[in-house]
C-alpha cells in the first residue's frame, strides 16, 4: 500500500539546480537504492521525500497521497542518518521512544514497541546506556531501532554504513538485508558505494548531477547499461572503456591499432565509439583477442587480475581465469567473445 511516485520533482537552492527533474516509481516493499557520486543530489532527493527539504516543483506521492506539503512526522516515514543523529542526552530507550512519547502514545505501548525493536536488533542490554557509551556499530543499530519503533511505511537510509569500518560494514549490510525481509516494508537507501547498491537493492537508481541516469534491477544495470556513466559506475572492478573508430571489418581501438575487433552490432563505418568490456568477460576461449603486455599482476587466490596495456597508456583490467603463471612483462592475448562487448557513441549513449 505504500509505494512512492515522484513526478518531475525538482529542487534548487537559490540559483543552483540540484535536482533537475526526477520521475520515479517505487513499489510497495521494494528495496530501492539511490547511488551516484558524491554531490549528485542523493541526500537532497531523500530529504525531499522525508520532508526535510521543500520540493521546488513537481509532485511526490507516498501511497496515494500527495505529500509535498505534509510535515515530516506525518508522511509515514522514518529516517536513519549517516551521523546516526541520536539524542546524546537520552538513553537508548528514551531515544527510541521519543517520537511515540511526543505523539502522546500510552506508556505501555511505547515500552512494548521499544522492546520489540530491541529484540529485533538485539539491543536489550544497551537500553539504559547513553549514545556516548556505545560503539559505532551499536549506535547504528540504535538509530535503526529508533526508526523501527515508529512502524513507518517507508524507511529512509542516508549512507548509514559509511562511518563504520570495512568489516562492520559488511556485517551491517547483511543485517539490513535481513531486516528488510523481516519488516517487509519499503526501503529507500542512499549510498555512493556501488557494491552496497548491488548487494542490497531490488532496484537501483543511478543519479548524476541531479538526474536519473538509469533505474533498474542490479543485474539489468550490470548487463545492460544505457550509457557510459552507468557502465563505468556499476561493477567492481570497473568496466574497461576504450575509444576507437568503426571500420569496414570491425572496430579499431586507439590503444590496439593492430587488432581489428569484430563489432557486436552493425554501426556505420567512421563512427567514433567507446567500447566497454568487463574484466570478468575476458575469456581464454574467446574468439577475438587483444595483444597486451602485462604491467601488474594481482593474485587474489581465487582469481588473478592482470593490468595490461596495448600501445597506449590506458591499463586494461583483465580477469585471467586464475592464470597463476602469468608474470609482469609477459605478452598476453586477452581473449573475449565479441558478444560481450558494449558499444557507446561519443555522446555516452549506448549503441544497440
Amino acid at each position, binding site marked *: 500500500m505504500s509505494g512512492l511516485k515522484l513526478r518531475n520533482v525538482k529542487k534548487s537552492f537559490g540559483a543552483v539546480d540540484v535536482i533537475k527533474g526526477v520521475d520515479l516509481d517505487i513499489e510497495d516493499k521494494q528495496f530501492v537504492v539511490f547511488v551516484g557520486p558524491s554531490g549528485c543530489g542523493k541526500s537532497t532527493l531523500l530529504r525531499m521525500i*522525508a520532508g526535510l527539504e521543500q520540493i521546488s516543483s513537481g509532485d511526490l506521492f507516498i501511497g496515494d497521497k500527495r505529500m509535498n506539503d505534509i510535515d515530516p512526522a506525518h508522511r509515514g516515514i522514518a529516517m536513519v542518518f549517516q551521523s546516526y543523529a541520536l539524542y546524546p542526552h537520552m538513553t537508548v530507550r528514551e531515544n527510541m521512544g521519543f517520537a511515540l512519547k511526543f505523539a502522546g502514545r500510552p506508556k505501555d505501548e511505547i515500552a512494548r514497541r521499544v522492546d520489540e525493536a530491541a529484540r529485533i536488533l538485539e539491543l536489550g542490554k544497551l537500553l539504559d546506556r547513553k549514545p556516548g557509551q556505545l560503539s559505532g556499530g551499536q549506535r547504528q543499530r540504535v538509530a535503526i531501532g529508533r526508526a523501527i519503533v515508529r512502524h513507518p511505511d517507508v524507511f529512509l537510509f542516508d549512507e548509514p554504513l559509511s562511518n563504520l569500518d570495512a568489516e562492520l560494514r559488511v556485517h551491517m549490510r547483511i543485517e539490513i538485508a535481513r531486516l528488510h525481509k523481516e519488516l517487509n516494508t519499503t526501503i529507500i537507501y542512499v549510498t555512493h558505494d556501488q557494491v552496497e547498491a548491488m548487494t542490497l537493492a531490488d532496484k537501483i537508481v543511478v543519479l548524476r548531477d541531479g538526474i536519473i541516469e538509469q533505474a533498474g534491477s542490479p543485474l539489468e544495470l550490470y548487463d545492460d547499461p544505457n550509457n557510459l556513466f552507468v557502465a563505468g559506475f556499476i561493477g567492481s572492478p570497473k568496466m574497461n572503456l576504450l575509444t576507437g573508430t568503426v571500420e569496414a571489418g570491425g572496430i579499431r581501438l586507439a590503444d590496439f591499432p593492430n587488432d581489428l575487433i569484430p563489432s557486436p552490432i552493425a554501426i556505420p563505418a567512421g563512427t567514433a565509439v567507446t567500447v566497454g568490456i568487463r574484466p570478468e568477460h575476458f575469456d581464454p576461449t574467446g574468439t577475438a583477442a587483444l595483444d597486451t603486455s602485462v604491467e601488474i599482476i594481482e593474485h587474489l587466490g581465487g582469481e588473478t587480475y592482470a593490468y595490461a596495456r596495448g600501445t597506449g597508456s590506458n591499463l586494461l583490467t583483465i580477469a585471467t581465469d586464475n592464470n597463476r603463471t602469468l608474470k609482469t612483462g609477459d605478452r598476453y592475448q586477452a581473449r573475449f567473445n565479441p558478444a560481450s562487448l558494449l558499444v557507446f557513441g561519443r555522446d555516452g549513449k549506448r549503441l544497440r
Partner: protein
Amino acid sequence: MSNPLALIGRIATYLLLTVAAFVSVFPFLWMVIGATNLSADIIRGKVTPGGALLQNISVFFSSVDMPRILFNSFLIAGLGTALTLLVSSLAGYGFEMFRSKVREKIFAGLLLMLSIPFAALMIPLFIMMANFKMINTYQAILLPTVASIFIIFYFRQATKAFPHELRDAARIDGLKEWQIFLYVYMPVMRSTYAAATIIVFMANWNNYLWPLIVLQTNEMKTLTLVVAGLTSAYTPDFGVIMVGAIFATLPTLIIFFLLQRRFVEGMLGAVK
C-alpha cells in the same frame, strides 16, 4: 627527568604559575583577612588575621538593609541571566541554523555594535528609559542587557558544533521548532549554557555604572552599589567594606564552583 633542560623548563613553569597564582589569590586573601581586622589596623598594613570579624559584620548589617539589597541583587542578576541566556541563545541558534541571504550582513552589523563603548550609549539609553518612565525600576536594568551581542556570538559559535542532523531527526520525530530548541538543543548545549551562565551572572552581579545611573533610591540598590557606596563615607571603615566585599563575591564564587566542570567543557565547545 634525565634531561636538565627539561628540568629547568619545568621549574620555570612552576615558578611562573606560582607567581600567577599568588597575584590572583592575594587580593582575595587580603579581603578575607581585612574582614577580621579593624579599619585602623588595615590602614597600618596589618596582614595577619585579627579578632574584629564579628564586630565588622554587625556594623555592616546595621548600616545596610541586607534582605532588601540581596533581593535586588539576586533578582537583577538571576532574572537577567535567565532572560539573557534565553534571548541570546535563541538568536545564536537562529543565526546558525537558518540560512538567509542577509544573515551574515545582520550578524556583521551586530558585531560592529560591540565596538561602541557603553559610555557612548549611556546618555541616549537614559533618555530612552526616562521617556518610558522606567527610571529606578528593575526593567531599566534588565532590558538593555537581555540581548547580549557577545553571548549571541558565543552561542552562534558553539552552535556550529550542534549537528544539523539532530534537528532533522527531531523534525521527523514530530517536534516543532520551539520543541526542538527546548527538548534537544538546550539539553545538548548544557555546557555552553553553564559557561554562559557564569559569564552573564558575574557581569550582571558586578554591573556598576548603569545601575548607579538608573537606580536612584536606596531600596532599589544592588549589593555592588551599596558596597561601593561604603567607600565614599567621610571616614570609610575598611573592615566593614571587606565584609561587604565578601558578601558581594560569594555568589559568583559559588556559581563558579558549581558549574566549573561544565564551564571548562563549554569553553572548549564540547557537544557530547
